[in-house]
């Protein structure tokens, strides 16, 4: 839980850590942990209009796999898509890849784009990823950012927050403390790795 991590931050820093800044640093640490693939989710995304770019849900920080209907799509870069077909954005068909738009990593397009919109998201059996999976929808396996971390990560995340808090410029900057806290945090994360 977030408040327990922030309590540990206060306690281990003897109250020196700035509470407001710590909260921001806590979010930064969760974002950084996206690289190590801790907080995972499967999300369904509806396809409404054919050919348009689709917005990624805001909480997603790293995409590990994407599925159209029942097939796992490959990831292509913008350059690869252009190399294969200059007009790839206007190519209808059954998608085999997804491409993140050049403008932002939060928008993606399917290549080629599907001509049909996804079926309505109605989950009669309460199983959106099972029996109720809507046909022609996109499912994304991703790492997300959350308010609360898993309980086994709390002490490690508190130490990583302390590392950031004490290495930034402030009246309580302490490089040795920050380095030790960071080392401990990374060792502790390694101990409870999935």
């Amino acid at each position, binding site marked *: 839980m977030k408040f327990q991590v922030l309590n540990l931050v206060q306690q281990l820093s003897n109250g020196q850590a700035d509470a407001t800044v710590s909260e921001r640093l806590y979010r930064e640490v969760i974002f950084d942990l996206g690289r190590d693939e801790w907080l*995972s989710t499967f999300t369904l995304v509806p396809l409404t209009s054919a050919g348009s770019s689709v917005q990624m849900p805001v909480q997603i920080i790293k995409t590990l796999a994407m599925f159209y209907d029942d097939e796992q799509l490959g990831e292509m870069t913008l350059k690869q898509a252009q190399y294969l077909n200059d007009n790839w954005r206007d190519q209808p068909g059954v998608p085999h890849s997804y491409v993140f738009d050049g403008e932002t990593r939060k928008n993606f397009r399917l290549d080629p784009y599907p001509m049909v919109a996804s079926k309505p998201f109605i989950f009669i059996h309460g199983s959106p990823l099972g029996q109720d999976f809507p046909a022609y929808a996109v499912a994304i396996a991703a790492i997300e950012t959350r308010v609360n971390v898993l309980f086994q990560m709390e002490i490690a995340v508190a130490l990583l927050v302390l590392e950031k808090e004490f290495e930034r410029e402030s009246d309580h900057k302490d490089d040795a403390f920050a380095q030790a806290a960071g080392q*401990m945090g990374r060792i502790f994360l390694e101990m409870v790795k*999935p």
Partner: protein
Amino acid sequence: MAEIAGLLTDALLQRIRDQQALGITPVVDNNGAAQNPSTPAGRAFARTLLSHAQMLINGAQEQVLSTFTLTTYPYQCVYPISGLIRANTNWPPGPNPTDDCVRIVGVRDGQRDLNRVMFRTLAHIDRHWFRRLGSVFTTWSMHGADSLVLYPGCQTRVALTVVYLQRTPFLTDDSVPTAIDDDTLPEVVDIAQALYHLKHRDMDLLPGILERLGQRYAKNLPKKNRG
């Protein structure tokens, strides 16, 4: 035989030469309110450090295992495990009483063990794995720390046995017994001691403990992060 938290707390306080626990009194309580130095609060904070340390040692050594019956849903391959595996009600509730699973270590269908593969390997096995149906589950995988993937999906509900590494009890009181082997309790005290030294900026005493922990439990980390 389990040791009670009180004895472990005494061991920690003796090591740090603060038997009254005045030096580790938390500055705020669990609700964020400021606290005055006192022995009970100091001991409670020592137990908090020991609780986290016990959980870390259990995470590294996989000592406290438990099983959970997962009844699958038809056609579904993915199961979020946060909140799914509930806390052992016999143990004192920790800060997150609903979660009980540190890590899944195995999945069985009756007496048959399912094979574990890396998440990225699933696409190499079958590009349609996400909706593939079969007669029995053959493979499991983890997506991140809290999503279980079973492959292939089944059309009927199946009861699987999930073997998981259990959350160790939070040492809320001096009478709560520890859950891991007594032989590994000195390492629990080591970790709690390292946290104490960090809190008190005793940086000279930290490198030895960090190096020992890093060499033992964090071999995959770059050397500069191992202490």
